[in-house]
């Protein structure tokens, strides 16, 4: 398949691909003319020795690391993997038309509601047959993450990383701070840090998504995993007193956040932690990318967000997970199954992590011997979790989170007193969005 400059697949000149294009167009048109789509989907003449993969891993490091996996797979099975890499953001923006057109057999995607959404739309194939083989490689929480709303498996996880509160060991040692495990300890620590001339919590919300991480943490510590899932799926009400309580807690913590966060990116906020001007920073473990000095990186540590409600303790970990899905009608089904069975093995994950050590393996069978101390801790936190969440925009409809929640949370941050009006507005908008399809 050739790619147009915009990354959209263009039908090639051959008769078969022309027909395939026509089949795709018919599917887009919703006409679903069986004859044409059969031409598009059938394996007649397509190469049984090749599997195509649509990849959003356009950055150099992950691109190479994924490439290493495919090479290992080809060496083992003799099946060639044909990778079409697209720019990360473009891939996400075009995922709709991509999956409706002539998608590759397998494609990179995210776990959570975002995966379930496309599964429910019939744009992905269930892969229960693959999970019969790989099921033993994954902890219970990962299995839960890989299922669609219909209970079938649609996803093979590869890597993951936790959200937690990051801090510098030397700063804590210097001031004699202790890691807080309860909400009251956290607030007291913030007060003490402010007194000591530190910014208690580094924060930057210019990109509008980091605030969603703070909401998630307070919400599932306070109301538990099940409520998080219901709220994100549009089932629980945003005007519920439980949600109001989340914002009340957040407002209590807000005075200890870094000033001027609306104009700051997470990278700039991370720099305050690097410079030891900030005491703590709630973010994903990718914050480590900003620690370019080896000594600084070794000084970096984290703790899970403190307990608020003893009924839930610290049992939930926010761990966005990346992996693979299968498109609606893959051309080489047998090859796809073989590839996914390989991707679900600890060996595949080990190959990947050798090339990209910024994340951890989704499987709890993968070897941790090459992990840094930070990775080991992250891995233990994730595999020990009772439930894993994905992050607000992966656990909910992306159109809801981007058009309603991102501006809504920013509004709260600007004016923490106007929560009631804000929440009823969010609830009204949520109803129309979730009702629309």
């Amino acid at each position: 398949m050739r790619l147009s400059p915009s990354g959209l697949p263009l039908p090639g000149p051959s008769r078969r691909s022309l027909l395939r294009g026509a089949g795709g167009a018919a599917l887009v048109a919703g006409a679903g003319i069986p004859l044409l789509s059969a031409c598009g989907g059938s394996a007649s003449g397509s190469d049984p020795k090749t599997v195509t993969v649509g990849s959003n891993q356009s950055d150099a490091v992950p691109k190479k690391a994924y490439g290493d996996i495919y090479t290992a797979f080809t060496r083992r099975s003799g099946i060639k993997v044909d990778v079409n890499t697209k720019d990360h953001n473009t891939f996400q923006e075009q995922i709709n038309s991509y999956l409706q057109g002539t998608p590759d057999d397998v494609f990179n995607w995210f776990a959570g509601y975002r995966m379930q959404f496309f599964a429910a739309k019939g744009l992905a194939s269930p892969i229960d047959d693959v999970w019969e083989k790989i099921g033993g490689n994954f902890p219970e929480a990962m299995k839960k993450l890989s299922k669609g709303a219909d209970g079938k498996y649609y996803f093979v996880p590869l890597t993951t990383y936790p959200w937690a509160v990051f801090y510098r060991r030397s700063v804590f040692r210097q001031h004699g701070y202790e890691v807080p495990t309860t909400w009251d300890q956290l607030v007291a620590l913030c007060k003490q840090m402010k007194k000591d001339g530190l910014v208690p919590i580094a924060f930057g919300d210019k990109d509008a998504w980091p605030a969603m991480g703070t909401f998630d943490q307070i919400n599932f510590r306070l109301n538990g995993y099940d409520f998080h899932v219901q709220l994100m799926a549009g089932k629980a009400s945003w005007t519920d007193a439980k949600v109001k309580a989340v914002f009340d807690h957040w407002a209590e913590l807000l005075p200890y956040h870094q000033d001027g966060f609306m104009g700051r990116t997470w990278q700039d906020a991370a720099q305050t932690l690097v410079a030891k001007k900030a005491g703590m920073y709630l973010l994903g473990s990718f914050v480590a990318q900003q620690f370019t000095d080896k000594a600084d990186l070794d000084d970096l540590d984290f703790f899970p967000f403190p307990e608020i409600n003893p009924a839930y303790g610290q049992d939930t970990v926010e761990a966005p997970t990346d992996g693979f899905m299968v498109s609606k009608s893959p051309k080489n089904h047998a090859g796809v199954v073989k590839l996914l069975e390989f991707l679900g093995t600890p060996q595949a994950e080990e190959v990947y992590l050798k090339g990209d050590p910024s994340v951890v393996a989704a499987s709890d069978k993968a070897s941790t011997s090459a992990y840094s101390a930070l990775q080991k801790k992250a891995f233990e936190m994730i595999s020990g979790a009772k439930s894993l969440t994905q992050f607000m925009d992966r656990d909910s409809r992306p159109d809801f989170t981007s058009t309603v929640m991102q501006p809504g949370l920013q509004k709260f941050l600007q004016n923490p007193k106007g929560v009631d009006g804000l929440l009823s507005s969010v609830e009204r908008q949520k109803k129309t969005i979730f009702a629309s399809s």
Partner: protein
Amino acid sequence: MTTDTTTKTPEPAAVPAPGPAPEKKRVVRGHRRLLTRRDRFTLALMAGVPTVLHVILVWVTALASILLAFTTWDGIGFDSIKWVGLDNFTQLFTDNPQFWPAVQHNVVWFVVLILIPTPFGLFLAVQLDKKIRFTRVYQTAFFLPVVISMACIGFVWQLVYNPDTGLINSIIGANEPGHYIDWIGDPHLNLWAVLIAASWRHTGYMMILYLAGLKSVDPSLREASALDGAGEWQTFRNVIFPTLRPTNTVVLVVTIIEALRAFDLVFVFNKGAQGTELLSILVTNNIIGESSRIGYGSAIAVVLLVISLAVIIPYLIATFRKERRA
């Protein structure tokens, strides 16, 4: 070099006027009578292809988005389009917390552009028109921002405004806790911060338009007013400004268009977050993405279209009336 070009350029323009012009006219007329098949084919191709493209890319899409504004659609298969009547619009007018601020900001955008950079551009044009020394250098300096794309301007001004490491805060020391100025995030500040960047560019644009207008002012008018003993300000107010009327119309239209299509600068600056919402950004945010709200986004686009038409139709009517009279 300059004398070379000035003597050369009028020549080709002057050629057709006196001598060979009538002959050429006759040739054209003859061709029209004897249009060969090939000519007709060429004509059809030259007129037809752009027409088809125009109809598909402008009219069909515009009509489609008007139709879609009355539906909900997530972009997955045509069978998921659902007719919802005026729902999108009622939601937009009542439930969307960003809609009215966006309308308001588009208006503010226009008012600021017409009140600040436009008079300033006129002022610069009048000064540069006096043939002061280095006038080309000044012209270039003021016009340069117009050549740069809005997106690039956004990136550059972001560096100036960055609250932690930006130029302004670093100079005045406003990046310390306690007396912190958040140019990009503070909803009371960021729209004005963006508008300064927009005005920076718009001034040069206005200056060039007015310079062109001033070039067409008859020098004898100036002479006459000087002979009548009018001061510089009197000459400008009573003689020059009235002759700039056609230019003013163009400036008004250009500024309205700039205010309505304002997008790239803000999108780069802070994606239209709190304080800088714009209609164009709301359209984009709703339509582009993995599960889009195409119907809802189209409804916003229709509002933008209606506003544009409300401005453009009176202008076109006025222009056509003038042409008919002439």
